[in-house]
């Protein structure tokens, strides 16, 4: 056996464990999703019949999926811009050479310690219609279908604040001080300096964050599961909530098609993420 063959065999052996997992739990399920989408099971799951591609067009064009996309899209709009603005605000405030600033930085990054589930319980304390501290605030009341999603979104904004803060702060600290000094010498005030100099310099970081936060929002499930159970009147049923609750044999085909729809949306966002990541790495070299 030549040295080259030996090297190739070693490489395949080293890749094998990962490839087995990927084939088993990533690519086979993708194939199964399509197959499930082409069939419909009976209530007991004992038999299935071919329904063909019409199930795809019916579901993807139907009210249920469209409602899920609308709710998830609204969720993105509620969480991403607000989370980003608050994260930048905290990072700018804490990017100062002041005594004790490390304490404030630690506090601002503290929500990293919370999971989606923990944040949901914490906002249960604040927003629960019966016992919540802010249950009387109508603007994000969980008992009104028109506002419930806002309340749920607030928990995500708070939960992601620590991560957003840490990443923006790292971005700010990578801006060379000379750049700011030069702008000051040019007569730029603090506000103009921020919008004309600092913000453009950290825009790649912000772009990265937008992608990450959008992906988080697309995957939202625990928030609705814990805070509202999808209600009231289905107003917080995100796409993943609908997929999760389509596991009974009778709904499985519909759930599979919705999952394919979520895949298509994730694909677009992930591609954007990958392009940004590659560019970052390329610049890094």
């Amino acid at each position, binding site marked *: 056996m030549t040295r080259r063959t030996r090297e*190739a065999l070693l490489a395949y052996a080293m890749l094998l464990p990962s490839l087995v997992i990927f084939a088993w739990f990533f690519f086979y399920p993708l194939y199964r999703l399509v197959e499930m989408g082409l069939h419909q099971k009976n209530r007991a799951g004992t038999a299935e019949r071919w329904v063909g591609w019409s199930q795809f067009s019916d579901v993807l064009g139907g009210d249920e999926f469209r409602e899920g996309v609308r709710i998830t899209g609204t969720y993105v709009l509620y969480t991403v811009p607000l989370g980003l603005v608050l994260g930048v605000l905290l990072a700018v405030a804490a990017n100062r050479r002041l005594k004790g600033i490390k304490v404030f930085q630690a506090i601002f990054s503290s929500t*990293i310690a919370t999971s989606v589930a923990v944040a949901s*319980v*914490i906002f249960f304390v604040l927003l629960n219609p019966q016992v919540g501290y802010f249950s009387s605030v109508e603007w994000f009341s969980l008992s009104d279908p028109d506002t419930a999603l806002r309340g749920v979104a607030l928990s995500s904004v708070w939960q992601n604040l620590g991560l957003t803060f840490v990443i923006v702060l790292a971005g700010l600290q990578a801006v060379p001080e000379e750049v700011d000094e030069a702008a000051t010498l040019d007569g730029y005030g603090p506000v103009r300096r921020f919008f004309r100099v600092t913000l453009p310099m950290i825009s790649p970081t912000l772009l990265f964050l937008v992608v990450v936060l959008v992906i988080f929002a697309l995957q939202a499930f625990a928030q609705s599961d814990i805070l509202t159970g999808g209600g009231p009147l289905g107003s917080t049923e995100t796409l993943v909530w609908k997929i999760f609750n389509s596991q009974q044999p009778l709904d499985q085909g519909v759930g599979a098609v919705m999952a394919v729809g979520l895949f298509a949306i994730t694909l677009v966002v992930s591609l954007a993420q990958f392009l940004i990541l590659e560019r970052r790495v390329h610049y890094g070299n």
Partner: protein
Amino acid sequence: MATDLHRTTRARVAWYALLTALAGVVLFPAYMTLVRALSQPREYVLAGQPPWPVSPEWDVFARAFTEGDMGRKFLVSAVVTGCIVAGQLLTATLAAYAFTFLRFPLRRTLFVVFMATLMLPIEVTLIPNVETVRSLGWLNSYPGLVGPFLATAFGTFLLRQGFRGIPRDLLDASQLDGFGHLAFLRRVAIPVTRPVVASFAVIAFLAAWNQYTWPRAVVTEGRWETVQIGLKSVAVETVDRSNIAFAAAILAAVPILLLLIFLQRHLVRGLTTGAVKG
């Protein structure tokens, strides 16, 4: 930045006031949860839900273990997290090494296959994966909870970036000394990239410990609940026992809080990978 702002004491005081106000807003939700966890539930409601504890019961955290079965949940979460972190470290290190130091047919194609999995989060593949786990009889079991997470494209990518920083001369030299690839991986590649490996391990721990959707889908029995999915009980708990559910949420965050305190450097580096140049 903004040195002009620091010139006067007044500006500095104003800045501290701003920072303190922001800190108050950030901490308030967690603080209120602590208040409700400590308060006697009924008396707290009767007192009009003030922002301080009412008739505090300090044993609530202990009761989360005795009455809320937190011990069992911590065990399940710890085993699941431990297996996922160890499994990912193993599979990703091997794959990253192959992609960095070995030449073989289809290398580019296989790397694209790896990266393609980034576009298949568990939320998308949930229904068929639950079917797989069910048909294997793995509902309510460690293999079911851990299986889909034993390989990671993100980790492979991260470690490959680390390995790429190793000069090729080192590999050539070690081969002249008669070392094979596995010895080079163990004795040189991993020790040299220890900071990257540590960052990856910390991030993997964070993600595994915090998981919700997958364990919620493959666990149907109370004794297989992880810490995170156990928190759902807050929604169905009676008012009298709600303080135990709130205490459980605080306990659930403790491991990550410790991680944040003791391994902050690695955590921040891992989280900011890809976000900031250099």
